[in-house]
């Protein structure tokens, strides 16, 4: 069984000779990151944070720390931090000089009064709760929306929900498990030296730069730890990033053509009879049809489509058919209307080779007894309450599959709903830590801003004033940083083994800042004063965190056998959470406790009964990117280049950290990577400001002339705004807005996946 154990006996707090207190804690956010739980030592003198170091006792990071944590004092004591609640008359939205400081009571009174007024007028679904990516606030989105505000309108304003959800949907439907990850021995005390562990021979890294993205709780440099021990890597990425340059094979594919390559890798494995017959026979469903479909994509065809050497496809397939091999599959597989097919064919490689939940293979996500993390009608979900409301959640009428996927609105249709009030008006916006007009999650961010501008009430929570709050909010609530509040951080909600840590409070909150959790509880106490069910949970932060821990399977206190409490975890600081191998043999994936996978057939569904049921092709197929040169040859003359986006940098977490001077010293502004041949053709030199333009919009970035992108492809940064441009409209948010060049609602058949790259453009040197 899975188990929770204490990692280190070092005391939580020690005192140095000069009176400085050194607190050990784990990091999540803010400042933003995914829930990696890196180990910190916070040095506090006279109540002030003087520096942050890494804590060698953290079993995965071992003291290592990135520059975002190392600059935390600069972040926490930044002169622009929001320290008090503020309000602004609705008619002054967008005007920086109209904010007035108010008390928390006044701010809450405004919110609650508007809540009652607008829900009475339009019904409870008029309340919407928005969350950005990765931050701790995302852990409270559904609770705030569903349980505090009694609304179904949870919004993630991300075209085609192109962030983890498509990948996770494929994991759920095909692999019959929760979030999967490469096996990096994260749950073991002795990590890679645990006798149960085996190092993967090869890791297939697909559209993911783990080193800087640290995706969804993964410590990205663990890939490097494994490479040093002898693991080899195969990388699929249009950019030759560090990992690609260190790969045995790098598929520098034509942007957006991923499904062709994934299918062809299967084809070689099947045609050369390299797959695991026993596993396929015993644990998979629909192999023959799957094999037949994959064969329609020969390596030769894929080589032509993806513009990669055909011999590399043969070579990679043969290497990946070995045991154990693993995969690191990233966001870029989500950002494509072809997403479910890409993921289907990638997971398929590992399924047919029997590299699932074996040591050094793909670690299957624990399904948490209640079925995992997808929507209310999700396969194998326990449905607690049937939704009998005849009015669908925004976008679920057009994309009914969303009901099977996640409890949010369909993002693209949400923009329609905001504009048309169909099927219901969304007039109350509660925006938690989401700077969605700053060229990150939204496509056409200015259209989203325009659609929200005239809504009746908008409240936002964050650390700094940002373009979204400046443009839209009537009330802003200041959030505390990770060192100013309590919390827990686990690896993808304990779907995966590894960190089970406490974010311990180290500092008194600056000004009047409060945690996301406390804000949710305060609102709950005002809106639901008579709550009787789960009263202890909703009473205070400790009650809530205890409940959260105790809802995770196998978390009993190892010393007493009693339910684990937050107080105890806080004393430990770091816990280790183990999940066994071969869960499908042990009956750990299914709610009924039987062996097999959490899918309708109980097997890995190479032929997907769920996709079939939802009207999608049950087998993978290739779809040419919708705006590629091959799809739109008539555009080539005007727009001869393709752009890709999303490269991660160590200096920021999406739109965050732009105001931290030490980080801006390392990375000054948004950059566009241009191949030297392309740069010369257009008369562009290193450091020039360049305009990138296409039919949807244009923006400006600084040229980085580099061969890591092919001729004809440029790589553009995302998430830029310029906090120093205080006198410019919305901190110059439009200047480098690459997302303004992306079409909206070009999504897959089931409502998932959208183009955040593989899009045409032209570039020219800007005048200034």
């Amino acid at each position, binding site marked *: 069984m899975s188990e929770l154990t204490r990692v280190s006996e070092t005391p939580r707090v020690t005192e140095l000779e000069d009176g400085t207190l050194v607190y050990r804690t784990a990091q999540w956010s803010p400042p933003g990151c995914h829930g990696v739980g890196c180990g910190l030592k916070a040095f506090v003198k006279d109540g002030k944070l003087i520096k942050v170091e890494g804590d060698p006792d953290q079993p995965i990071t071992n003291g290592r720390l990135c*520059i975002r944590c190392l600059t935390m004092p600069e972040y926490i004591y930044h002169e622009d931090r929001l320290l008090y609640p503020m309000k602004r008359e609705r008619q002054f939205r967008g005007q920086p000089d109209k904010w007035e400081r108010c008390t928390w009571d006044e701010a809450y009174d405004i919110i609650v009064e508007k809540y009652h007024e607008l829900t009475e007028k339009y019904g409870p679904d008029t309340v919407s709760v928005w969350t950005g990516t990765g931050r701790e606030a995302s852990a409270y989105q559904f609770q705030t929306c569903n349980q505090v505000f009694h609304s179904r309108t949870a919004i993630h304003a991300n075209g085609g929900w192109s962030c983890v959800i498509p990948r996770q949907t494929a994991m759920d439907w095909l692999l019959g498990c929760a979030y999967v990850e490469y096996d990096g021995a994260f749950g073991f005390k002795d990590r890679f030296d645990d006798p149960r562990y085996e190092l993967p021979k090869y890791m297939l890294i697909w559209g993911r730069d783990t080193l800087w993205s640290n995706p969804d709780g993964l410590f990205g440099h663990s890939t490097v730890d494994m490479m040093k021990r002898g693991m080899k890597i195969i990388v699929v990425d249009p950019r030759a990033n560090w990992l690609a340059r260190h790969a045995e094979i790098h598929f520098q594919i034509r942007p957006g053509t991923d499904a062709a390559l994934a299918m062809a890798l299967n084809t070689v494995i099947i045609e050369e009879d390299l797959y695991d017959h026993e596993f396929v026979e015993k644990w998979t469903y629909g192999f023959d049809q799957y094999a037949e479909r994959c064969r329609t994509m020969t390596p030769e065809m894929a080589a032509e489509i993806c513009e990669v050497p055909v011999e590399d496809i043969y070579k990679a397939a043969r290497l990946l058919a070995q045991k154990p091999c693993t995969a690191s599959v990233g966001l870029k597989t989500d950002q494509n209307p072809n997403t479910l097919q890409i993921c289907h064919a990638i997971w398929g490689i590992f399924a047919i080779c029997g590299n699932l939940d074996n040591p050094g293979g793909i670690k299957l996500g624990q399904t948490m007894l209640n079925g995992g993390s997808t929507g209310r009608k999700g396969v194998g979900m326990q449905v607690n309450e049937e939704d009998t409301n005849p009015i669908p959640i925004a976008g679920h009428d057009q994309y009914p599959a969303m009901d099977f996927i996640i409890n949010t609105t369909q993002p693209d249709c949400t923009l329609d709903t905001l504009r048309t009030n169909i099927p219901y008006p969304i007039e109350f916006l509660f925006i938690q830590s989401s700077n969605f007009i700053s060229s990150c999650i939204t496509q056409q961010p200015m259209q989203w801003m325009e659609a929200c501008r005239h809504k009746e009430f908008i409240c936002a929570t964050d650390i700094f004033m940002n373009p979204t709050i400046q443009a839209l909010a009537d009330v802003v609530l200041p959030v505390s940083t990770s060192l100013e509040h309590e919390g827990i951080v686990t690896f993808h909600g304990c779907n995966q083994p590894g960190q089970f840590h406490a974010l311990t409070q180290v500092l008194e909150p600056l000004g009047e800042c409060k945690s996301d959790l406390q804000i949710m509880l305060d609102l709950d106490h005002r809106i639901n004063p008579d709550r009787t069910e789960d009263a202890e949970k909703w009473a205070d932060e400790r009650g809530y965190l205890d409940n959260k821990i105790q809802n995770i399977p196998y978390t009993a206190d190892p010393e007493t056998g009693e339910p684990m409490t937050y107080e105890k975890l806080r004393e430990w600081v770091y816990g280790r959470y183990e999940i066994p191998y071969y869960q499908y043999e042990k009956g750990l994936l299914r709610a009924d406790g039987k062996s097999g996978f959490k899918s309708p057939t109980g097997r890995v569904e190479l032929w997907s009964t769920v996709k079939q049921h939802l009207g999608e092709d049950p087998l993978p197929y290739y779809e040419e990117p919708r705006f590629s040169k091959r799809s739109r040859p008539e555009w080539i003359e005007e727009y001869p280049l393709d752009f890709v986006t999303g490269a991660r940098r160590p200096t920021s977490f999406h739109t965050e950290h732009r105001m931290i001077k030490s980080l801006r010293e390392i990375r000054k502004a948004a950059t566009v990577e241009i191949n030297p041949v392309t740069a010369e053709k257009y008369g562009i030199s290193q450091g020039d400001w360049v305009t990138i333009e296409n039919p949807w919009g244009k923006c400006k970035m600084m040229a980085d002339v580099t061969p890591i992108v092919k001729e004809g492809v440029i790589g553009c940064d995302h998430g830029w705004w310029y906090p120093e441009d205080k006198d410019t409209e919305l901190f110059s948010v439009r200047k480098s807005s690459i997302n303004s060049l992306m079409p909206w609602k070009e999504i897959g058949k089931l409502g998932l996946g959208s183009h955040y790259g593989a899009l045409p453009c032209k570039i020219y040197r800007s005048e200034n």
Partner: protein
Amino acid sequence: MATYGLMIDNEYCTGCHTCEIACRNELGLPQGQWGIKLLEMGPWRKMDGKWEGKYVPVPTTYCTMCESRVEAGGVPSCVLHCLANAIEYGTLEELAHKMAERGEQCSIFLP
């Protein structure tokens, strides 16, 4: 007395800049000043199609090898924090031995 140095693994240094900031925190240096600075060579594609290119963090004359940290039983700040564990601290003798063992793509710096 033994001479101490820093050995850099130039194959695995990923260019994370951690050493720069960790060092600056330790020495209390202002912006624009560095106790160790990350330099980048390349990348470019070689004639055989493989990549050449390295990140090379170079200690400056500010570097004290974190004397007080080491005295207290710790390691230099850049060594502790480096995300790729690509910096090692030791006597020249130890490092030369490790370098020979490593066999390629590494360098030793004496600040």
